Structures are given as structure tokens and as C-alpha cells.
């Protein structure tokens, strides 16, 4: 189906063939507007209802009306945070973390300019939060806590269920960006205190351009887009029907394959990680290996640069990523790696391999064979690398002054 080996599933995923099949009729004969009364619209309306129930099942939501379809994860994040601020104008503080996705971070930075106080929870060397620090910040001045369920770069899982419970006890709304977690780890929202959750279709084998905001019943809400009555007035705009149907199907498949994530997908990830760590000196796994997504492995190759690794991997048809694709274009290493205190010499050389259930064990072996020569080749060029190992005291051995 695909040419090459695709290990960049945290960036985006292949649309499952079953999902494509499910959505195609909605471009052709099922073209109706679901709001229309006639049969053209009515059938599409029924299909959307079914999709909503499929999403509800994957999330373990109590009511199907808690599922609000949006255009993407970023829209869901912005809707959640801005809604909390508008519904509680007397609350002027936000709690989030330093390792959030730009969808949350850039918004928070913008809100700071508008006068909001944003508390950024720090992480330790393994990417873990300090819950004590979090508890001390909870107060009736805080409008919302927005904490990601799983980190897109390191795969580290945050204890969002417990944090939501603490927020509830303090009378504070809790939102989680679960774009990377949905479909990879079991979620049962009705058993939690999470008020809002964002997910993105294209991270779980649905197409791009479709997302969901889970909105717990009785959570005070102010819509981002006002207009028509779609999504019960909580997200106006004619429904993206084909993609909604596709996301529903993708959620059904994700739920059916949930066990595969923690068994076969995890085994492939672990095999790759062990294989590379055994063959390549001076590299290490970033994040919290004991507590992360089963599909993600982020390895820092010291003294070389990530983009160079990616280009050479790409030449062999292997797709991975360095840091977050969203942060590429900047010369700064990933904010997630810096937040964990990974030194520059390693942070620049982090490579993320992220799997899906469409990968195979054979592909893993090919990557294990490909990586060591690439790393060796680049290290030969590196000013931080001497004969068969890093130079002593690399920071001082090579400390160029930038003009």
C-alpha cells in the first residue's frame, strides 16, 4: 500500500482503507445537508448520529451529545480554553504545562498579552510533572487547567485523570489535549472528572480536517463559532459529513484494535528501541520509558543533528521525525526536549519513531539495520566527535561564537 517505511504516526496516520470506503459515498450520492428535511439530508443526518455514537464509545462518554465535531485538534483546544475564559470572566488565570502542543502554548502566550496570568507547570528530566506544584496553583482565580494526556514528542503520559479530580475538588475546569492518546490508550471519560477533551481525526487513521471536542454535560460553555444550530449550537457551520463518518469508522476500528496497541505495536516499538540502543553508542531514550504511549520512542543521538539523520533515513525510504513537526522551521531545538533539560548537543539529535498498527516486524528490522551506519557517518563529520567517541568536554572543545 505505502512505499517505504512509515514511522511518523504521531505526525499523521494513513487513512484506513475501511475508513476511506465508509466516507466515499458522502462525496457522491450521499451529498445532502444533514440539516435538510428531505431524504437526501435525512440519511446523512442518520450517518452523523451513528458516527457520534462511535466516537462516544471510544471515549467512554456518558452521553452522545457530549461529542462536538470540530475541524481539528487545534480548534478543539482553542474552543475549550476560550470558552472557559468567556464563561468565567472573573477568573483570570490559566494552568498549563511547558510541554504542551503549540495549539495550547501559542494561544496561552497570546492570552498573556491580553492580561491573563498563565502558570506553566515545569517537567523534570523524564518529562514528569510535580503534582505538588500543581496543587498549590489551584484556586478560584483559575478559569481552566489544560494539560495534555500524552506528549507528542516523548510519548510521556500525564496523570490527567488524577489532576482533573484535584481540579474538580478546587472548583476549576479541566481540559486535556488528548490528540496523541485517543486510540492508543484506553479512555473511559464517564469515570473521570475531565470536563473537556480534544481529539484529532488524522492521528487515528481518519482524514485531516476533522476533530472532536468532548464537552461533559453541564460544563459551562461559550461557543467559538456562532451561526447555525449545528452541534446543538455549540459549533456552527455545515457539518463536514464525509469526514465525520470517516472519524466514526476510525474510532470503531481503534476501539476494536485497542489491545493490539499495548501488545503487538508495543513489542515492535520495544524491539526497535533495544535494537538501536544496542548498536549505537551514545544515544538514549528521552521521556519516561516506563510511562508512555505504546507506539512512541524518542531517541537522542548525541553530537549529531536530527534533520541530517532524517534526510539520510528518508533516502532509504524510512520516515521519522525530529522533535515536533510543528516546531520545525525554527532553529531552536524542541521546547519539549529543552524543558526536560536535555543538553543542546543531544536535543538537536532527537529522532522520534512513532508506530501504528499498520507497521510490521520486518520493517522494524530494516530500520535497526539502517540507523547505526547513518549515525556513524554523521558523527564522522561532527566537531563533537573524535576517534571512536565524543571529544572530551565537548562544550569547551567546540564552542563556536554565533555572529
Amino acid at each position, binding site marked *: 500500500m505505502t512505499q517505504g517505511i512509515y514511522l511518523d504516526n504521531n505526525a499523521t496516520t494513513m487513512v484506513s482503507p475501511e475508513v476511506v470506503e465508509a466516507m466515499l459515498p458522502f462525496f457522491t450520492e450521499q451529498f445532502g445537508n444533514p440539516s435538510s428535511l428531505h431524504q437526501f439530508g435525512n440519511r446523512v443526518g442518520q450517518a452523523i448520529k451513528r458516527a457520534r455514537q462511535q466516537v462516544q464509545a471510544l471515549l467512554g462518554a456518558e452521553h452522545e451529545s457530549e461529542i462536538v465535531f470540530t475541524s481539528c485538534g487545534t480548534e478543539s483546544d482553542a474552543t475549550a480554553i476560550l470558552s472557559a475564559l468567556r464563561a468565567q470572566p472573573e477568573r483570570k488565570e490559566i494552568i498549563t504545562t511547558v510541554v504542551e502542543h503549540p495549539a495550547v502554548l501559542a494561544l496561552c502566550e497570546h492570552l498573556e498579552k491580553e492580561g491573563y496570568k498563565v502558570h506553566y507547570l515545569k517537567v523534570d528530566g523524564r518529562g514528569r510533572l510535580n503534582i505538588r506544584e500543581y496543587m498549590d496553583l489551584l484556586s478560584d482565580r483559575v478559569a481552566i487547567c489544560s494539560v495534555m494526556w500524552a506528549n507528542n514528542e516523548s510519548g510521556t503520559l500525564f496523570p490527567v485523570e488524577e489532576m482533573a479530580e484535584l481540579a474538580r475538588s478546587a472548583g476549576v475546569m479541566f481540559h486535556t489535549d488528548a490528540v496523541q492518546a485517543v486510540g492508543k490508550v484506553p479512555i473511559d471519560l464517564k*469515570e473521570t472528572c475531565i470536563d473537556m477533551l480534544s481529539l484529532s481525526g488524522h492521528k487515528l487513521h481518519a482524514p485531516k480536517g476533522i476533530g472532536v471536542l468532548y464537552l461533559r454535560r453541564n460544563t459551562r460553555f461559550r461557543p467559538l463559532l456562532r451561526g447555525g444550530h449545528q452541534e446543538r449550537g455549540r459549533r456552527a457551520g455545515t457539518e463536514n459529513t464525509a469526514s465525520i463518518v470517516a472519524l466514526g469508522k476510525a474510532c470503531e476500528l481503534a476501539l476494536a484494535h485497542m489491545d493490539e496497541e499495548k501488545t503487538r505495536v508495543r513489542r515492535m516499538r520495544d524491539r526497535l528501541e533495544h535494537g538501536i540502543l544496542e548498536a549505537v553508542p551514545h544515544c538514549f531514550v528521552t521521556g519516561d520509558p516506563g510511562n508512555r504511549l505504546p507506539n512512541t520512542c524518542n531517541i537522542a543521538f548525541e553530537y549529531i543533528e536530527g534533520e541530517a539523520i532524517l534526510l539520510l533515513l528518508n533516502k532509504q525510504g524510512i520516515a521519522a521525525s525530529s522533535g515536533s513537526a510543528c516546531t520545525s522551521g525554527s532553529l531552536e531545538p524542541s521546547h519539549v526536549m529543552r524543558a526536560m533539560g536535555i543538553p543542546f548537543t543531544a536535543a538537536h539529535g532527537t529522532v522520534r519513531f512513532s508506530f501504528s498498527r499498520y507497521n510490521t516486524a520486518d520493517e522494524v528490522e530494516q530500520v535497526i539495520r539502517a540507523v547505526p551506519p547513518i549515525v556513524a557517518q554523521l558523527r564522522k563529520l561532527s566537531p563533537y566527535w573524535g576517534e571512536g567517541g565524543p571529544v572530551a568536554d565537548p562544550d569547551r572543545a567546540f564552542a563556536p561564537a554565533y555572529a
Partner: protein
Amino acid sequence: MWDYSEKVQDHFFSPRNAGAVAGANAVGDVGSLSCGDALRLSLKVDPETETILEAGFQTFGCGSAIASSSALTEIIKGMTLDQALKVSNQDIADYLDGLPPEKMHCSVMGREALQAAVANYRGQVWKDDHAEGALVCKCFAVDAVLIEETIRANGLSTVEEVTNYTKAGGGCSACHEGVEEILTRVLKEQGRTFDPAGAARAPAKGKGFSNLQRIRRIEGAIEAIRPNLQRDRGDVELVEIDGKNVYVNMTGACVGCQMAATTLDGIQQKIVEDLGEFVRVLPASALQARA
């Protein structure tokens, strides 16, 4: 897109008793063109027994308005006027195997037309007992006027109370913004302000320990700490446990002690360790502030 039952579709496509009844001696007109719904119900009533011999309708309205009218005429034929007056809008909806929430007002219109026709027969004037406002709660078909009147009549001040009195907002909760707006407006007229805090929300069901076990563990942790405090002539007592918040009273030398905050931190750490979950230990004064 409307989810009409088979029964609604049947009564819409093949309406029963459509048209005016010839020689009718009871006519009820309700609705208005400006509302997009109007219904004329005409009845032929036997003056001896007050039994409805014939019923006919003329309806300007949507599919469910026509189906509701058709259903109404079928239900009331053969009833006496007194029996017919007991027919509720829910009876009409039930007869049709239910109506979409947004369409429940169609069945209300049917019942009102019936009341108007009976009043007409008896030489009375029927008065619409409520002005219909914009539909706010679609789950339970509650309009703005009803919500506003209920708030005024009962001195309501929270969304939860409005839900308890009118059902509005008790379903999907998408209309809470609308309910809050009405509350804000009505309370402002009364010189009050709307406080959205309302009732605190229930914490999640705890995992692991049962509630009782959890309380005992917290008590145990506090008991273990008390001797240390008592040595400094201070003391602590447990006041309340609410979800993740544990409220304590510092007594004796602890009152006004500069180290009280540090002591609270120590108690919190001990409870967190014993309980295996994060909780916040707060002074009981915070509990009063919250109430």
C-alpha cells in the same frame, strides 16, 4: 433533518379528518401565521350528550403540526367534551409514538385548539394562558417565557434550580448559556447579580479505597501526627473531607503560629503518603469561605 416516527409520517402523508366539518357547532382557532403555526379545529357536538360526533382540522404548519392535528381528531372523536378536555399534549405525542423535542409545541397547539373549541361551544372566550417565547431547551421543549416566569414566580437564581422547576437544561445542557442569559436579565431587574458558581459538582467515584476506608486512613494519618503537635502545645482536628480537599482545624498553639502553613504541608504529605493519592489539606476557614 427530523427523526419522525412511522406514525407521524403516516398521519402527515394520509391525514385523517382533514377539512372543516360541515355544520360544525364548535370551532377553535389557535396559533398565528407569524408563529408559523395555525390550527382551526371544528367539531360537531351532539347537544344532548355533549359527545363529539365529528372532528375536522385545517392546519397551517409543518409535518408534525399536521400529524398532531390529525391525531387529535382521531383521539377525540366519540369522546364527550369533558373527556376530550382531559387529553393532554403528551397524549397526542404518545399517540404518534413521540415527537422530536423541537416539535412538541405542535402537540401543545392541538390541545389548545381543543380547549378553544370547547369554550366556543359553551359560549365562553378561550384565552391563551401563555405567550410562547423562543424555544430554549430543545430536549424538553421549554421556551424563554416559561423560564422567565418560573424564575420570577419562585425566586430562582441558578441554572440548576431552573432545571428542577422547568426541566429546561436537564438534557444535553447545550442551552445552559441561554438559561444563564435569562437568569442574568431577570436577576438584574431585581437588583441582584447572577452567580454562576451554583452548586459544587460531585467528585468522581474514588478508585481503590471505599469512602469509609478513605476517611479512616485520613483520620489515622492525622492521629499519627497529633502527638508531634501536642508536644508543642498545638493540635489539629479533622473537620471535613470533600473530594480531594481535606479541611482541618488547627488548635492550641498552632493558632496564629508562623509555621502553621508548613505544618499543614507536613500533614498533607503524611496523608498523601498513607492514602497513595494526592489530596489538598486546607484550613477549615477555607471551607467557610467556600460556603
